[in-house]
């Protein structure tokens, strides 16, 4: 779904373009541009660089360079040993720290819950695409929490889930004992992840709907004529045709779980109860900001980065294989 409508649907045939087609996915098209030879003055030749330089500089200096710095930093000491090379000491310490192990365990939990976080918006998008009555209303209601800050979402659910809060009041009225939703180490992480899914499924829904916009509707019509049931249509038509979108949603949902739950954790549980709701990002922040252990935090950052790379690669591989089997 392009933004706006700058694209004429029919391109005029262009003279003097080698092959005419765009050269793959490179940043500029193939074929000779009708720039007058020499391209004018030196200032003109430098113009593209002047236009790109500010963005490129900021990205290199404030994103890519710090990545290298951080990895480098993770092999040095903290405090007394500031700047001294300590080899893998930080990493050893990380894996001996039960809080960090909990954080990694919670990442495992997120991976297990990932299919749920993808299936919910996927199914809902299917129904909306199939034009259930009120589909426009559903679409805008579902998308709404996605624009709220995690801090606001967390604060609202702190109210709802409080021990003396409304949810327990409802349960009490039907004779169920109050549950300490955010104070029970076995429950708290599930609650936070649940709230995260509640708050973000609208984003994935919109992505799915964008994928549906590219779906060939004649396939659906054919399936209907053949008398296929909805589950059959889902399995044989929709899932194979949307393989790329599903892959994209899987990866972005996972990255979202690994890098955008800080606000919720900070507001809802602060890592508690008993450290049960730690995730790597929260651990990094605690070590850097509260414990004054920047090098240890850097080691945790490096591990988080590796996890993200591995998760991304694995999912792409798995889904490619699934796509081939279909």
């Amino acid at each position: 779904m392009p933004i706006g409508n700058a694209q004429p649907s029919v391109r005029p045939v262009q003279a003097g373009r080698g092959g005419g087609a765009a050269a793959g996915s490179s940043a500029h098209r193939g074929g000779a541009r009708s720039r007058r030879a020499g391209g004018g003055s030196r200032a003109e030749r430098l113009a593209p660089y002047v236009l790109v330089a500010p963005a490129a500089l900021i990205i290199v200096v404030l994103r890519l360079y710090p990545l290298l710095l951080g990895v480098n930093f993770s092999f040095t000491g903290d405090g007394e040993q500031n700047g001294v090379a300590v080899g893998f000491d930080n990493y050893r310490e990380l894996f001996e720290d039960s809080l960090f192990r909990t954080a990694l365990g919670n990442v495992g939990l997120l991976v297990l819950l990932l299919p749920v976080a993808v299936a919910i918006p996927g199914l809902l998008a299917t129904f909306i695409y199939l034009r259930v009555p009120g589909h426009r209303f559903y679409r805008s209601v579902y998308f709404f929490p996605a624009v709220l800050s995690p801090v606001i979402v967390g604060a609202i659910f702190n109210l709802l889930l409080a021990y003396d809060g409304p949810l327990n009041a409802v349960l009490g009225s039907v004779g169920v004992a109050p549950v300490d939703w955010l104070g029970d180490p076995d429950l708290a992480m599930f609650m936070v992840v649940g709230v995260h899914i509640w708050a973000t499924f609208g984003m994935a829904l919109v992505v799915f709907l964008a994928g549906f916009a590219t779906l060939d509707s004649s396939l659906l019509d054919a399936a209907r004529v053949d008398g296929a049931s909805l589950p059959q249509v889902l399995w044989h038509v929709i899932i194979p045709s949307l393989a790329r979108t599903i892959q994209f949603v899987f990866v972005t949902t996972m990255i979202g779980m690994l890098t955008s739950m800080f606000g919720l954790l900070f507001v809802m549980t602060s890592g508690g109860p008993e450290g049960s709701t730690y995730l790597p990002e929260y651990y990094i922040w605690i070590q850097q900001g509260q414990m004054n252990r920047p090098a240890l935090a850097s080691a945790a950052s490096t591990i988080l980065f590796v996890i993200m790379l591995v998760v991304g690669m694995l999912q792409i591989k798995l889904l490619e294989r699934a796509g081939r089997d279909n």
Partner: protein
Amino acid sequence: MSRVRPGRWVVAIPMSLLALATIYPLLFTVNVAMKTRRDYILDRFSLTDALRWENLGTAWNSVGMGRYFANSLFVVTSSVVLLLLLGSMAGFALSQLRFRGSSALFLGCLAGLFVPFQVIMVPLARLMADTALIDTYPGLVLVYVAQFLPFTVFLMTSYYRGIPPEIVDAARIDGNSVYGVYRRIMLPLGTPALLSVGILNALFCWNDVLMSLVMMPSADHRTLMVGVTSLRGQYSDDIPTFASGVLIAAIPVLVVYLFLQRQIADGVAAGSTKG
């Protein structure tokens, strides 16, 4: 088939319940914000008997929310203006101009997409401290710009790729410099994309809590979202005022959503389909 298909209801009921579950938490918060403390303690759910806007006033005045609000507004506005300017300049050059190294530069910009803030938090804070930018507004603006620029460059580049190169050529023959083409042709043509990506960036910056928490240690530099996190401690026994504070922070986003829902969704969709 003329008979009613049961499938309809099987879908409609869960979807309606889910819609209710999506919207109820906010309605509950609005309702609580209007109640008196006594009312809330007696009954969590009863509809408020009056619209008590004074709770909002209490929250606004007592926690310094006005100050935080102004901080957020200033930082977010500056960040978005810079993002759109730098993103559209780079997007135009990377999509419409041919020059040596453009592919490498494009890939370099994209690489930034795969580096989340958490991974570079420590070295970035250190860089900011070394350059005396930590705890300053320009510092936070720079951090936001660096965070969302890869996405902005990516979107603007893919949008500008859809503009026929003949337009640029014609403008050049008319005697425009490259900069002239950017200012007179590309900026106006880019309006729909700039609007979408601008709103999206504004939301991201407005909603951020981690970056401003790390980069703005001192209390009077706090952004609104960091301010909201401190409401809880202050009003643990005064839930209506707490809810009012939360509501104040949510109102700008609600308003933006009501009017610009379309553009937000388009921005998200464009980010996914062009990949």
